[in-house]
């Protein structure tokens, strides 16, 4: 491989080898001659109009170079705290010039660099570089600054009770949001850069001692395995590290909320933060966690438990309602109460399609409307919802295309799928609904049962980073169920979820005698 041919300004970049990221490039040490370095850098950043080369003179006669990417670094601060003191600085001889230059820079984050490859990296994350003639090292100054979005409440995961902040696209802001919640030094944030061209910073965050070390190693090794041109969103990584790539069920949780990420960390999970996206990944993922919402833990445990069961119920409704309707209406008419069947028969009388076709028309229309609503600009969105209300509603019935019970079934299915706290859960249900509908149209309730059996069998084989998908119900772990069947009050939630069948004493997260009472100090006294 030819990178920098012995000081010649010859480049063989990009190479055809996929695993070649900046990390794996051979270290090209800095040349003592500044001009040579400038030549190399200029040829590397050929046709890069955003890279600024500022040559200036320090110590009255020594050439120096300031290098940064416009828009990534804070130019005001550079002028104030780097250029100005350096230009005005006293004369030193060549031996002492480097140390003194470093001293003159009144910036906290100052690092020494020794290779050209380091320069690429540092300026790309916004750290300006100072190179001085006759020196084989340079200075990287931590003055990144770029436009970033302010911290807002995430639209996709809003809560009534709970913090209003959400992750943003800037990685460092996201890590700071986590660090602000978990202040302990045992919160580790390992950095891995992924992507040949994007050099995306990916951070594996975990609490040492809480997260199983096997899990951390597994996540890290899977991340390191990824060889790809670029990572633009966490979805890239999610699909690259899944255990079962063809499963419709999510095997990694996603969140935009720092409180959810922190809670996951405290439960012993690993959080993967990716630069450039507010969506972070959480591993491992279990089926129960797909139906847990952040607010469950902030609201009273009665209502949380109730809503959790409501979600379990509506999970099945979202998955099975149209197929059960089709099955009963085409195969098992005797199962309905007489008066209900009569009403349905009345409303279906003028419908030209079989129930299965009718269900398909409505479900597909509904999915189309939902997709249109997501994709369209906000101004047009209102129009879509009006049209949607007509399509799935009175007009459709009046036109004689679908019967009103079918409208009702589709509506309740829609509501049910919106009840899923995680978007990814809704997606898998939406996909699986259609094959089950076909099964029900062909085999009736037998087909529905066949579909359920297949799904359950599949879910039982699923694993997320070595953790069974139905962890805590199958394999049964009684102490885990207090966050599955119910949401136990916080004073009773004394162990962390058990992912790897550990001794419960390792999982203790709070002292268990904290049940409050009128006589302070708990239950007993």
């Amino acid at each position, binding site marked *: 491989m030819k990178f920098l041919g012995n000081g010649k300004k010859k480049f063989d970049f990009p190479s055809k080898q996929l695993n070649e990221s900046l990390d794996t490039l051979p270290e090209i040490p800095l040349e003592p001659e500044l001009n040579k370095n400038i030549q190399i850098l200029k040829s590397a950043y050929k046709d890069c109009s955003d890279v600024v080369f500022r040559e200036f003179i320090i110590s009255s006669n020594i050439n120096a170079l300031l290098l940064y990417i416009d828009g990534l670094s804070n130019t005001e601060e550079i002028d104030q705290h780097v250029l100005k003191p350096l230009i005005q600085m006293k004369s030193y001889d060549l031996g002492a010039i480097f140390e003194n230059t470093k001293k003159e820079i009144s910036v906290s984050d100052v690092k020494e660099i020794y290779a050209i490859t380091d320069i690429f990296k540092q300026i790309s994350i916004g750290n300006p570089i100072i190179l001085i003639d006759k020196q084989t090292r340079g200075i990287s100054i931590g003055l990144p600054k770029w436009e970033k979005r302010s911290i807002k409440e995430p639209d996709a995961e809003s809560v009534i009770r709970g913090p209003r902040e959400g992750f943003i696209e800037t990685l460092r802001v996201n890590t700071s949001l986590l660090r602000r919640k978990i202040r302990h030094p045992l919160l580790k944030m390992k950095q891995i850069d992924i992507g040949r061209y994007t050099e995306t910073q990916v951070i594996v965050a975990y609490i040492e001692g809480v997260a199983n070390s096997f899990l951390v190693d597994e996540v890290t090794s899977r991340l390191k395995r990824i060889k790809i041109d670029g990572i633009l969103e966490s979805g890239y990584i999610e699909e690259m590290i899944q255990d079962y790539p063809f499963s419709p069920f999510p095997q990694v949780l996603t969140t935009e909320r720092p409180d959810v990420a922190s809670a996951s960390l405290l439960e012993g999970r690993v959080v993967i933060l990716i630069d450039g996206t507010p969506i972070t990944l959480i591993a491992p993922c279990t089926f129960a966690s797909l139906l847990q919402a952040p607010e469950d833990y902030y609201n009273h445990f009665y209502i949380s438990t109730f809503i959790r069961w409501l979600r379990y119920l509506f999970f099945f409704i979202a998955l099975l309602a149209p197929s059960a309707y089709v099955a009963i*209406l*085409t*195969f098992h*008419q*005797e199962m*309905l109460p*007489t*008066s209900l*069947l*009569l*009403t*349905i*028969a*009345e*409303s*279906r*009388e*003028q*419908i030209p399609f*079989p*129930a299965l076709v009718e269900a398909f028309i409505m479900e597909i229309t509904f999915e189309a409307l939902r997709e249109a609503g997501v994709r369209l600009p906000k101004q047009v969105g209102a129009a879509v919802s009006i049209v949607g209300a007509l399509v799935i509603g009175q007009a459709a019935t*009046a036109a*004689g295309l679908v019967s*009103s019970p079918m409208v009702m079934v589709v509506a309740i299915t829609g509501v049910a799928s919106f009840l899923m706290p995680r978007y990814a859960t809704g997606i898998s249900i939406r996909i699986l609904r259609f094959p089950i509908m076909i099964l029900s*149209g*062909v*085999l*009736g309730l037998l*087909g529905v049962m*066949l579909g359920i059996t297949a799904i359950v069998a599949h879910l039982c084989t699923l694993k997320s980073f070595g953790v069974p998908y139905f962890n805590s119900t199958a394999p049964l772990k009684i102490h885990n169920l207090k966050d599955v069947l119910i949401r136990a009050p916080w004073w009773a939630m004394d162990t962390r979820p058990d992912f790897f069948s550990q001794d419960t004493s390792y999982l203790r997260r709070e002292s268990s005698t904290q049940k409050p009472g009128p006589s302070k100090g708990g239950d007993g006294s």
Partner: protein
Amino acid sequence: MSCLIRSVKKTFTLILLVCLTSIFLTGCWDRAEVNDLALILAAGIDKGKKNNIELSAQIFIPKPSQSGQQSEMSAGGSSGQSFVRSAEGETIADAMARLQEELTREIFWGQNEVLIIGEKLAKEGIIDQIDFWMRHSEPRIRADVFVSKGRSKTVLKAMPELENDTSKQLRKIVKTHIGVKVTAKDLSQMLSGESDAAVLPWVEYLDPSMMDSKKAIPIINGAAIFKKGKMVGRLDDKKTRGILWPRNEIKSGVITISFKNEKGYISLKLLQSHNELIPSLKNGKWSMHIKTSADMEVIQNTTKRNLFNPKVIKEAQQKIEFEIEQRERLAFSEVQKKLNADIFGFADEFERKYPQEWKQKKAEWNEIFPQVAVTFDTKVTIKRTGLGTEKQ
């Protein structure tokens, strides 16, 4: 090598998948859209003119809801939502096939909850007809069975006032448990039980003077008694109430009592009751002890008695006990002595308690039953005397 294994694995999976798709070939055979079904709401069987059986079916007309704004689906006219069609045949199934020839849609028994047997047919015997109900997979075995005065077709054609059709009318009446409620399954059990006797509710029309022009309103008035699958007699309403007690079927009711030499009445509502049949066979003497316990609540008192007085309560309880026993006696005199039909299931009770003796005497049951000595032990508790001031 591993390549070979993989290709073998792939072929295997493919074959497996192809095999799995064959599951779908079994599908759809019994698929039927609601639009293609003739929903039978009620069925009646009568003695046919030419053939053996005349089957009449009340079939639902799914009137499409008026398309347009504010289509009031349920508020449509209550009349003409169904029609009655009949066909004759050698058996019910045969008649059904004939009936099917006249209909554009497939006959669907799954929602049929009412079966009415015409009086004439009932007297000839119903066991063969019930066989269809139990054997065919479509009809509900929980359908209510009735015997109608005259032809069952006339009952089906009747137009009740409150309900949409006869089917609903009869089903709802029978649900109130004022009279007997017998489903096809019960009937089949009764007919195949040791006693070989059955009881079915008897359908009549309301008195014409109370009717609205041409409308006929079917009501239940008493019960028909069957023996060996044939109708042998009927009980009026009062006697029917009497047989409900020993059959442990009484669920609600109001009993009104009066005291000797005193004006006014006390009316009591039944809260709950329990009945037990205790058979005994001593020295060849068959006897049955009927133990009844009931809780009552006073709902009206027009006498001058103070119900807060325990003595009065006790007296009233005795009076009610007597009243209940009186009713039961009345029923027994009719059913046991006159009709000789063991509709109370005495035979099963004896068989359960004295299996050996029963085996020997089984054949003579017809002679034994009228001779069984029936004794009563009724216990009534007045649980509440209600609000209302007591008279001095």
